[in-house]
């Protein structure tokens, strides 16, 4: 586009022709620089995208195995001395599992060895047996075949996360245990089953018994509080600032405040929650109520800014038309402007909620990091949320928690993708261009 005309007229002055020569001499270099620059830009984009791809691939590779749980098939004699109709609920089912293991490996005798053998199954194996017995009490006194969850160390070996060829001192499972596992494998007594526990249980110290339901419910309650407060308040604030507020110092101050709050580090909101909601008002620690309040303050600026943008997009002719047929300003806004701006506001709200769902730091400050086994049943019960659960598991020493953490991340990302997709859909479906 900027190549000089090759058939330049011969009548040019000498100085000009010299310029042309200089320019032409440097042209090749300049074009190379142009190409380099272009490649540099492209490689920056590719670099960012590659990072994203690597991160996703890494997390999926680490996490996909958590959706399956290694189970052992045991022939188990339901001893009527241990389980009878009177104690179905609190019988010692774990003892049945242990006896069955002893029967499978009669050569194991020493105390130490026996303990190692019991360690093959999860401490929650008895629960699987109990389910089986409760389903059909006629099995009492008979020998049944039950799939029981394996211990997390066995799980890791079966899934290949732990190398069997490592020297014994670097493994959590000894050579003996590996031998037992191989025996069971050769008998077809080891299989990977769909991990229901992961979706139906609360937190646990045992990786094979830990699940995300508690954290998911906690996230749900926290977001419920956030949504119930931040949507009406955010919409009201946007309406006031955009439609009613006089232009003066006070509204300027509010605007500066909102813009600034949107950029305040989230952990500072946590400090606010700790000092005001917990210490001053004495609201219950670790509760979704307090978490929701903190997240409300954090997401409000996002919602207000999005709300104002969508109000600005409504053309003034709508307002003028309503006013000219005798509507009050309030009526014009609530009956005509707000319905038109609402899709945009909802989009902003969903994006704000998605952010709130992924937020961790301020919730650490208000005590939502406790180890909570029970599934919360209300706004004031102690609870934790998905991202905090991820943080807690990431800190755990057991190798098996790595895959649980990655799987929890996948679940969290799935929620986020659904929310963002909803926002995009809403925007495309309802947003009008004027």
């Amino acid at each position, binding site marked *: 586009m900027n190549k000089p005309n090759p058939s330049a007229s011969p009548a040019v002055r000498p100085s000009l022709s010299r310029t042309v020569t200089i320019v032409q001499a440097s042209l090749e270099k300049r074009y190379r620089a142009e190409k380099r620059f272009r490649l540099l830009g492209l490689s920056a984009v590719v670099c960012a995208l590659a990072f994203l791809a690597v991160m996703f691939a890494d997390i999926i590779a680490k996490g996909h195995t958590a959706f399956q749980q290694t189970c052992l098939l045991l022939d188990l004699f339901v001893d009527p001395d241990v389980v009878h109709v009177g104690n179905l609920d609190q019988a010692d089912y774990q003892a049945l599992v242990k006896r069955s293991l002893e029967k499978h490996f009669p050569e194991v005798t020493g105390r130490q060895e026996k303990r190692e053998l019991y360690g093959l199954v999860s401490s929650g194996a008895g629960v699987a047996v109990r389910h089986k017995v409760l389903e059909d009490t006629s099995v009492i006194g008979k020998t049944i075949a039950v799939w029981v969850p394996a211990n997390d160390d066995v799980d890791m070996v079966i899934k290949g996360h732990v190398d069997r060829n490592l020297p014994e001192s670097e493994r959590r499972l000894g050579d003996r245990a590996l031998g037992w596992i191989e025996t069971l494998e050769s008998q077809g007594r080891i299989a990977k089953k769909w991990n229901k526990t992961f979706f139906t249980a609360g937190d646990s110290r045992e990786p094979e018994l830990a699940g995300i339901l508690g954290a998911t419910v906690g996230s749900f309650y926290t977001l419920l509080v956030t949504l119930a407060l931040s949507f009406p308040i955010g919409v009201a604030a946007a309406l*006031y600032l955009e439609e*009613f507020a006089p232009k003066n110092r006070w509204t300027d101050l509010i605007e500066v405040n909102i813009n600034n709050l949107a*950029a305040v580090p989230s952990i500072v909101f946590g*400090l606010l929650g700790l*000092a005001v909601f917990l210490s001053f008002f004495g609201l219950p620690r670790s509760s979704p109520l307090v978490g929701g309040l903190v997240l409300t303050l954090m997401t409000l600026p996002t919602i207000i800014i999005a709300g104002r943008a969508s109000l600005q997009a409504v053309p003034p002719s709508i307002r003028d038309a309503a006013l000219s047929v005798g509507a009050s300003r309030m009526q014009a806004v609530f009956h005509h402007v707000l319905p038109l701006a609402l899709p945009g506001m909802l989009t902003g709200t969903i994006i704000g909620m998605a952010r709130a769902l992924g937020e961790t730091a301020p919730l650490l400050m208000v005590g939502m990091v406790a180890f909570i086994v029970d599934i919360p049943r209300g706004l004031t019960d102690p609870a934790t949320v998905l991202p905090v659960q991820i943080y807690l598991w990431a800190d755990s020493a057991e190798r098996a928690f790595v895959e649980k953490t990655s799987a929890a991340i996948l679940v969290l990302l799935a929620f*986020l993708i659904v929310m963002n997709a909803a926002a995009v859909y809403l925007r495309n479906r309802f947003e009008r261009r004027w």
Partner: protein
Amino acid sequence: MPGMILLALLVLSSAAYVLGHRRVLRMVGGPARARTLASRPRYYGTYVALWCAVPALVLLVLWLFLEPVVLDQLVLRHLPDAYRNLPSERVSLLMNDIKNLAKGGIVSAQADPAVQEAAEHYRRLQALAKTALWGVVLSLSALGLHIGYRKIHVSFRARNQVEKVIQVFLVAASTIAVFTTIGIVFSVLFEALRFFRLVPWWEFLFGLKWSPQMAIRADQVGASGAFGMIPVFTGTLLIAAIAMSVAVPLGLLSAIYLSEYAPKGFRTAVKPILEILAGIPTVVYGFFAALTVGPMLRRLGESLGLSVASESALAAGLVMGIMIVPFVSSLSDDIITAVPNDLRDGSLALGATRSETVKRVVLPAALPGIVGGILLGVSRAIGETMIVVMAAGLAANLTLNPLAAVTTVTVQIVTLLVGDQEFDSPKTLAAFALGLVLFVVTLILNIIALVVVRKYREQYE
């Protein structure tokens, strides 16, 4: 229980709406003549419903916030003098015991008769408060209904009144942002000032040693010597600098490529994907930094003969930089697109290549805006918490070596405040002092950035 009261209020105010609506129609002589009313009939209903619900709601909220405080005071006043003169943290422990006893829970120590009695007292008060709350809220609501019902008549301007109430709600909602800022400033400042009474501020700001774990008791010798924030702040700046040296080139170059070079299809496909990076929760980045990038850098360092700490500043900084890329790139993209095309066309017409146009015309014109965007990115990097909590260290080393482990302001706030905490100990209060520093620094960065960006926008509008 508040849920039940809210439900009751909802039912009552719906009834109030119907009553008001009917009354005004009856007064005017049937729906056919409704158009002679000063306002439309439903405004009368709404007016009565507002009278019924709003005062009762305000009372309910106030009550719920104040009840615990008032109950504590009442119970404390009832205790023998020996308990009341305890230091404040012991008193709060005692209150916890009393509350647990009242709930029938487990108590930390053997409960003596006075505490037992206080617990009993507390339980009685709680039951009383519960009944009183129902009574007071419902009667206030009924009273409101009565007043509203009496007030309406045919020429009553119900719409203006209702709109006034809505207006008040709108104004109140818009001031919440201001109150949040005030709340942040006061809560952080107040606790920080208490900290500076224990540790002089110059030692905090200029001290070279940070080891809060040493100072469990305020009266310990040398307790105050361990609260120097310089190493913590240096660590923060080091990690932020690494992050920005990743984020600025990557973000700026991709913004330039996307806005100046990329074909339209590429741009529309890539922009949303870049924005995904901005939407990923930081805890995910933290996990990736701690479990993948950190060990990888360590192995890489080993193979090169360097000793890299497993929680090196480099790992946290690199991942944080990637997190900030979409932030820098989308802001720069907006600003580069806002540069008028006349400038570009002029430069191209003079024979400059595209890259020369970008480097010599577009970027200088967009520079203030880009600097503003970068400043916002720096403020993010300084305030970012989860990545550094998971991937950076805890020990405060005063070093600029990116391969060593450093700690940051946010990491220290989290470690000081998560877990067992005793209020009033310098350890806990130090977190608020760090919070104050964090807030002030990011505030200054944000304000400069916002002013710069705003000025820049005005320039081309």
